[in-house]
């Protein structure tokens, strides 16, 4: 997962959205630290992490914003998804209400977010099959209809966690090579970290 020396490193802002207790922080923890904590302290406000991922001969550095899930904190979210190159909308496969909430986040991203943001839908807690309440088919169909890519993940057992980030990284890099004018917008840039390969700026 470590960046190879000499590579171009591309920074990408990524935001996690989803209902309370869906497992947003746990997914990030698993991805960034390789750990799982059963009783993860609630996220207040938002938390920031970063992690690099090598894809072929290129490296993506994710700047990850992990947001608070509760509806009341909704007003803080736009700041984190605006200008994001990617978003992971997380729900809990054992909790249908969290799937409904995930759909609302997708709608909001479609309405308010950057059209080039890559949106992934993660059905988390996939290790708890006995308690499943959201059929994988249903989520898959929904994802297809809405142009998202979908994976069921488990932060607890690490299933598909690296994969979902890897898939995002791959798509980001593909978008980068795309010569269309908006392509550069998927990657978040600050003035001092401007990438040579892209021209436009976001947020």
């Amino acid at each position, binding site marked *: 997962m470590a960046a190879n020396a000499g590579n171009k490193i591309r920074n990408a802002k990524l935001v996690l959205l989803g209902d*309370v*207790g869906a497992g947003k922080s746990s997914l990030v923890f698993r991805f960034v630290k390789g750990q799982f*904590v059963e009783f993860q*302290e*609630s996220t207040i*406000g938002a938390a920031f992490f970063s992690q690099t991922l090598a894809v072929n001969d290129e490296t993506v550095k994710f700047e990850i914003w992990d947001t608070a899930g509760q509806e009341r904190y909704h007003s803080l979210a736009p700041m984190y998804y605006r200008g994001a190159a990617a978003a992971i909308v997380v729900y809990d496969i054992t909790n249908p209400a969290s799937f409904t909430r995930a759909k609302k986040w997708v709608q909001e991203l479609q309405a308010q977010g950057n059209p080039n943001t890559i949106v992934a839908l993660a059905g988390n807690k996939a290790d708890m099959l006995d308690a499943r309440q959201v059929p994988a088919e249903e989520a898959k169909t929904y994802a297809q209809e809405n142009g998202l890519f979908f994976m069921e993940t488990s932060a607890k057992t690490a299933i598909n966690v690296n994969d979902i980030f890897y898939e995002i990284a791959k798509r980001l890099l593909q978008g980068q090579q795309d010569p269309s004018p908006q392509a550069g917008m998927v990657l978040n840039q600050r003035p001092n970290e401007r990438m040579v390969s892209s021209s436009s700026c976001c947020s």
Partner: protein
Amino acid sequence: MDKKKAIDETEPGVAPSRAVDRFGFIKSEQSNSPDGIPKGKSIHEREREEKRIRKWRKMIGVGGSDWKHYVRRNPHVVKRRIRKGIPDCLRGLVWQLISGSRDLLLMNPGVYETLVIYETSASELEIIRDISRTFPSHIFFQQRHGPGQRSLYNILKAYSVYDRDVGYVQGMGFLAGLLLLYMSEEDAFWLLVALLKGAVHAPMEGLYQAGLPLVQQYLSQFEKLVMEHMPKLGQHFVEEMINPSMYASQWFITVFSYSFPFHLTLRVWDVFLYEGIKVVFQVGLALLRFCHDDLVKLPFEKLLHALRNFPEEATDPDVLLPIAFTFKVSSRLEDLKKEYQKRLEGTSETSSSKRHQPLISKTMSRVGSRVISNLTADKK
């Protein structure tokens, strides 16, 4: 940060037996951070501590009977002593006296019980989901359905009934949890009410109302203060596109009770309950001042990391608080609040701006009158 670490599954109903620090937080193996008490106190230090406690006992009187009288005659002595830290064995009682919660409790007999036992709340499921995620590394809150978790649930549920407009909001649990470590459930509930409804200081319920109006206001005020007191750092934040909501929203929403060393949290709360929210601004500024020369050199990502992981020296209350008190912010905070409100009114005349109006306690008269007969009785 250290509170977040390594907790394995706890079997329901079985209390874990692991090494805890003096506040009851389970020690993580890799952490060797001091818990605020120097190892092996000298006899001299212990004597000084005992003398301090005797002074405090005298000041308070039996069960708090002399407190109001003492405060009226010697407000500055009280302020000075509180800034040095309330002795831990008296903390729970003193917190209730300085916050005005003791009066609320006495004025509302039986109310808490009614809220807990007879009322139902729309937030019950939400609260339950968060219970095991509040101070998960504290021994008192670790046991599933144990007394700590039950009390925490009761308080949060009671509050969500008491003010149905606000209901339950993530973050409240950390306030309630902190209080529960120092007082009974009912006492902690009334202290929460005193803070959010404003018994002594301005009400803080705006931290948790729709749109988080008070969080927005505090962050805006804080950003301005940083610019005024540390222009170079303020400018650096602008250049790196860092705004205070990225690092300071938890400071305000939980009054430093979230991911800060507990001995610092307690000392901040001593002052916070007596002097009000301004100490959160002061401590925030002090953290930035302490790390100023490093922070101005850091690029975005490292900067964010540094703002969320302050070095151990920076979070020593005996170092940090004296720096904090050098920032004189009271009158500036008032001006900035007025500016902020003016800006809000200016930007939108629509209904949404009404929701964002901070500090005005709309629910106070409606909800408050039912149970509180005279909230301002103890105004200093």
